[in-house]
């Protein structure tokens, strides 16, 4: 058994990151993923960290577990091949613009006629309605548009050699395209739920989600406004911001005011942040009162914020919070990371060392949990990256394939679909299907 979706076939028309991530996760769950690529390939083949013209680490990472079929969907022959593939598939994922889907004849209405119980998943940037409906969407734009960048508010710029770049504008979060990944996850959960529904009722359906929807979802905690108790930052955005913009203030000036409106000044946190110890940096993660009290006990500090009836908004309270934060910073510098982790762990206080992402590749915790898998890429050589993200007692999925070369499996998949070798050669000759 290789995962709960064994026997499910997915046709992936989607490109770049969000859609391909969903294909990767579906393949981890045991589905057979056929990536249909245009003659020029998924543009992300030329993505970050290129190896050759059509292979990059960016591409390999989000396309393992798939087979590649290269078809020209502008040709009628290419469309006919795709329609035959869809008739034998369970799921289709797309992330193209609506007019492109129609032009390539891979829109839901067309494919539903070919495969009535098809589960069709569509990712758009902003949804099919609203003023931005037709606009392109990328992780970065979502970070800017939905407030992720503004909330992080890091305007120091990037150190590059002896100069700083991007100073004065908020930096985007670059360690991962979080909105793309959230959207990829969202597609998988919707597709699996729809497969369950289809199994019970025989009905397929179309599911739409968007980068925008998932950017909002992951910021659910920031967006929870109670109308009879609006937060100061909501008041700020609704009432002050338009005036400040009109007055021509720079972003840095506006940001400074925005930050002042936060109900708890960030600098006052002492239980949920990172600290410099005598040597390395450690992080504390106490989110509930009992844990905070344990941390305070470990540190030997008295925190008036645990007192009954404490009012966090008074000037004295804020003064106290900042003074205590400075005091704790000094205390933690007195012992090493190892000493503090031993103390916190013994007391049941959530704490962890601060590591670099590169350290995860060889970390015993990654290996003990099977989170690092190793594969051989024909061009790139040995690849190590994150493996399936869940453990299953009955249907443990196994990653089986490295990311495919463009059109690597055209011959194999068309042959499975019932095309003869002569037909496949003919497709290759006219260019409607490319056999790698």
């Amino acid at each position, binding site marked *: 058994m290789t*995962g709960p979706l064994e026997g499910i076939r997915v046709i992936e028309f989607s490109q770049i990151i969000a859609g391909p991530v969903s294909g990767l996760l579906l393949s981890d769950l045991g589905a057979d993923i056929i990536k249909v690529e245009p003659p020029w390939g998924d543009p992300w083949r*030329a993505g970050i960290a290129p190896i050759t013209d059509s292979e990059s*680490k960016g591409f*390999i*990472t989000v396309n393992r577990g798939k087979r590649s079929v290269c078809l020209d969907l502008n040709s009628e022959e290419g469309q006919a091949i795709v329609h035959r593939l869809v008739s034998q598939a369970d799921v289709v994922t797309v992330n193209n613009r609506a007019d492109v889907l129609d032009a390539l004849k891979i829109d839901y209405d067309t494919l539903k006629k070919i495969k009535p119980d098809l589960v069709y998943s569509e990712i758009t940037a902003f949804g099919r309605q*609203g*003023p931005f409906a037709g606009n392109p969407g*990328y*992780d*970065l*734009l979502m970070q*800017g548009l*939905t*407030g992720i960048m*503004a*909330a*992080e508010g*890091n305007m120091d710029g990037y*150190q*590059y050699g002896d100069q700083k*770049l*991007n100073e*004065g504008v908020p*930096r985007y979060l670059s*360690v*991962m395209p979080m909105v793309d990944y*959230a959207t990829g996850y969202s597609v*998988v959960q*919707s597709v*699996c*739920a729809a*497969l369950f529904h289809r199994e019970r009722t025989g*009905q397929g359906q179309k599911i739409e*989600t968007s980068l925008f929807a998932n950017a909002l*979802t992951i910021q*659910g905690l*920031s*967006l*929870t406004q*109670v109308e009879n108790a609006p937060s100061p930052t909501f008041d700020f*955005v609704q009432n002050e911001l338009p005036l400040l913009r009109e007055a021509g203030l720079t972003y840095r000036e506006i940001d400074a005011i925005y930050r002042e409106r936060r*109900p708890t000044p960030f600098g006052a946190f002492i239980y949920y*942040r990172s600290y*410099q110890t005598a040597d390395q*940096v450690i*992080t504390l*993660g106490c989110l*509930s009162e009992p844990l905070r009290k344990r941390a305070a006990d470990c540190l030997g500090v008295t925190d008036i914020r645990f007192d009954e009836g404490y009012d966090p908004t008074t000037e004295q309270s804020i003064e106290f919070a900042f003074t205590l934060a400075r005091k704790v910073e000094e205390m933690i510098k007195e012992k090493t990371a190892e000493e503090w982790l031993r103390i916190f762990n013994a007391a049941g206080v959530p704490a962890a060392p601060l*590591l670099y*992402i590169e350290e995860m*590749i060889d970390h*015993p915790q990654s290996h*003990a*949990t099977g989170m690092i898998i190793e594969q051989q890429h024909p061009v*790139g*050589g*040995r*690849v190590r*990256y994150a493996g399936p993200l869940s*453990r299953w007692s009955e249907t443990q999925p196994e990653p089986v394939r490295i990311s495919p070369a463009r059109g690597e499996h055209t011959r194999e998949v068309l042959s499975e679909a019932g095309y003869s070798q002569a037909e496949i050669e003919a497709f290759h000759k006219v260019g409607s299907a490319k056999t790698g």
Partner: protein
Amino acid sequence: MGRSATTERNRERKFSRMTGPLDGVRVIEFTEIIAGPVSGVMLSDLGADVIKVEPPWGDPWRDGGGPFAEHESRAFIAVNRGKRSIQLDLTKGDGRAAAHRLVENADIVVTNHRPDVPAKLGIDYDTLSAINPRIIYAEASAYGLKGPYSGGPGYDVLAQAFSGIMQSEGIMWRGVPRMIRTTPFVDFATGYAIVQSVCAALYHREKSGRGQKIGTSLLANAMTTLSGHLARIPGNPTKPQQWHDEDLPMLRQAGLSDNEINDLYYEARWFPSAMLIYYRPYRTEDGLIAVACLSDPLRKRMADCVDFEDRRFQPGYDLEAPESVEFADDLLVRVEELIVEKTSEDWLRLFHGAGVPAMPVQFVEGLLDNEQAQANDLVIEQDHHAAGKMQLVGPNANFSDTPLDAVLPSPALGQHTAEILGEAGYSGDEITALLESGAALG
């Protein structure tokens, strides 16, 4: 302010109108704080009946960010809508028996405790699968069930620290790297992972008749989302990899401070910045915009719009040559100077006209009133028992045949204890007895 269609529908509908692909599926959620509860929200969005079993003191997150009443906070509401709350004391025999009776008639159990806690409370997979062999049991741990950190506590900030997210972002604050604080992203990714796993397992159970246990972790999902950084290919070593293999051990041994190491780290990992001008926020004459061109055709369009030459589009151009780096740096400054000359509106009109991906940079607080969010039913309105009318982020997908409809607000602590015990077959007298003994509360 225009209300979305979903909001209008919410007003008219009652709880009895269940929709979504998971209609009829029952979830028992033994989870707290964020990751587990997020999965419950999403499962409820998909149409499942989600019962949140809370301890006598309630989910500690009830006192999380933005408290406005006893046992109620904005942060709790955000990740607990769509559920019913039953309050049981699992350390008491009767309370545990009640939980077991709920599991008998359920499809899914979700837990996110430390690995040793479920067995102590009698809600471990072995116990529950003996009661209901078809049960699908999803367990979210912090670092996985094996390895040196398997027993460790897990919170988003620790996962960010441990997995390298914090270091990689390198937002320094008071001398140390700061967490990404906009969203507890690792928690949310783990919530998504639970939902997709549970749904896949439901599909599998429908075909095979078998339930099973699924484990995922904060670390697993931090790493999944970090895959791009983790792909290392010997033979094509990246600067960060070289830095990690060769420089880092040396620097640590030499006793450099973390701050000093950090500066060197950022220098080492800024390899992708060659094309930085096409994927970043810019200051305009009156505000901020972001552009996002990830392929050469899009980059060329942007160069045309802004009107500058980029010789790096020539085939065979070596991006890593020293003169290339210098060219990139000079160009960056020039493009900044060009973009600051026009207003955001001007640039967006130009870029959109030419098909260049670009958007304004906004504050998150404006999104609930945002036309785009409203137009796509992403904002819902609910009546909360303590908060009154409130706006929340709604379901994140539209299903054509089984539309999603978020109806229930987050519950008061133990709000549905009697109702759910009644459904489980307890008589009125039995329920009274349970409430009197403190095995059940509410």
